[in-house]
């Protein structure tokens, strides 16, 4: 089993709902984004093309971040999800530097969203429910809690809402798909073949689990 994501760029309307939902789901502090939208411009006037690329951790099959981690804090789970154990991370940032996709963030210090007002209720709740340790590296975990929690309840990730990553269920354009890449009959595998989807920069050789259709 290898969980993966497919993003259809033709469907993405660049509304940033995935970015906001990810931020809310994980109570991410200021300056930390696990899901981002990059905007590119190609072509020359008058035929300039603007394209939004939602990016997140690629949960690579040959993840360099796992190999360079000196403490084993970054690990690859049996289901393909690359996660960080915050209690083991020493904050050396070698994973962050080694990641060719630069989707990791060093959580340097806890700063309130609105400095002069102190912490908001949202931030206080986040500190209790989803505490992120300063001095460690953080990144997208494919909403591991939702996926694993859903499986325990007998739900199917990618099909049932409660077992699917937050960015996927939030996308109003239904541009994101989640599922098992190792199962050739799963919706995501079928669509990857149908749309001839590919990961970003496959030449880095890390075999990402996030695919893009209409690149």
């Amino acid at each position, binding site marked *: 089993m290898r969980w993966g994501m497919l993003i259809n760029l033709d469907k993405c309307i660049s509304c940033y709902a995935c970015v906001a939902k990810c931020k809310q789901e994980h109570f991410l502090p200021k300056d930390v*984004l696990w899901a*981002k*939208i*990059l*905007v*590119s*411009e*190609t*072509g*020359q006037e008058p035929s*300039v093309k603007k*394209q939004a*690329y939602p*990016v997140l951790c690629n949960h690579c099959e040959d993840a*360099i971040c*796992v*190999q*360079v*981690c*000196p*403490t*084993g*804090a970054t690990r690859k789970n049996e289901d393909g999800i690359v996660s960080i154990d915050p209690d*083991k*991370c*020493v*904050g*050396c*940032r*070698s994973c*962050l*530097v*080694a*990641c*060719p*996709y*630069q989707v990791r*963030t*060093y959580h*340097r210090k806890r700063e309130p969203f609105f400095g002069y007002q102190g912490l908001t209720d949202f931030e206080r709740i986040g500190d209790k429910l989803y505490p992120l*340790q*300063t*001095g*460690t*590296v953080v990144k997208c975990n494919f909403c591991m809690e939702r996926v694993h929690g859903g499986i325990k309840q007998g739900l199917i990730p990618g099909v049932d809402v409660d077992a699917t990553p937050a960015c996927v269920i939030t996308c109003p354009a239904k541009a994101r798909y989640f599922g098992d890449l190792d199962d050739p009959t799963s919706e995501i595998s079928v669509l990857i073949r149908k749309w001839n989807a590919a990961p*970003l*920069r496959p030449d*880095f*050789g890390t075999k990402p689990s996030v695919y893009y259709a209409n690149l």
Partner: protein
Amino acid sequence: MIQNKLYEFMTRYTPQREWIEAHGMLLWISTFFVEIGAATFFVASIFNNMVAMLVGLLICGVLGGSLHVLELGRPLRMWRILFSSGLKTSWISRGMWSVSLFIGFGALYLGLAVTSVKIPALLIAANFFGFFSMIYLGFLLSYVNGIALWNSALMPILILSISIWGGLDILGLTSMVTGTVSDGAVFLSRIFPLIISFIVICYLVGIRYQGESGRLSFNEIVFKTGAKVFWIGFVLFGVVFPVVITLVHVFNGSMPGAIRGILPVFELGANLSLRYCILKWAIYEPIIPYENSTTQLI
């Protein structure tokens, strides 16, 4: 990561910042001390200079080791680097083990040598782990395939050679203070700038033709924002001055003590400058298509 416009991050060629800006500068300084400390011990052991061996050990352990730990986001968890599964694949873990064992064996050797008991096996072990302490950063950087400047087979050789260069300088300074100057060490330290120049030229020429980000890194270092650090910091102080002074010495026959003392200081500055260039102008390739990406850095 420090960035102005989130939606532009990694859309164009993006410089590495985590290991050279703000808190990350400690990595630049700490690896410098660790490596030249281990190299000082190594070259001093060849020329049997016990004082310089002790100086090398102290530079590596006290300056390099402490700064290395301070560079971590969670310094109190440093022990996890030594006692975890990371050793199998991580060069940071291997480096930390090497430095620890180098300091351990080196201190044991020197401690026993004070009581006139010299155990060659301890010296061999210290230098063995000292060698890995000198070179591990090179392997660590060459592993990063997103940065052409680092992803080079010459990187470990470059790091090893500039470490030995720095070690020879510390040995020269220590020898001046203790009055135990060795002709062999002086000869080596005089020809090393030329060896380093050759390796740096090979390395930079290789980088120049290693894709677009390699070309950009080369241009930044040699012609653009890094040119001052490279040409003045490294070339002038590390190559031109030493070579000119050495030539004057050869033809004149004597070298004033002040110049002999300032030369290693210049070379250590050049060593730091070169390391700064390597870390500062490391550039990631963009992950999405972007027009004019070849001409702009974020």
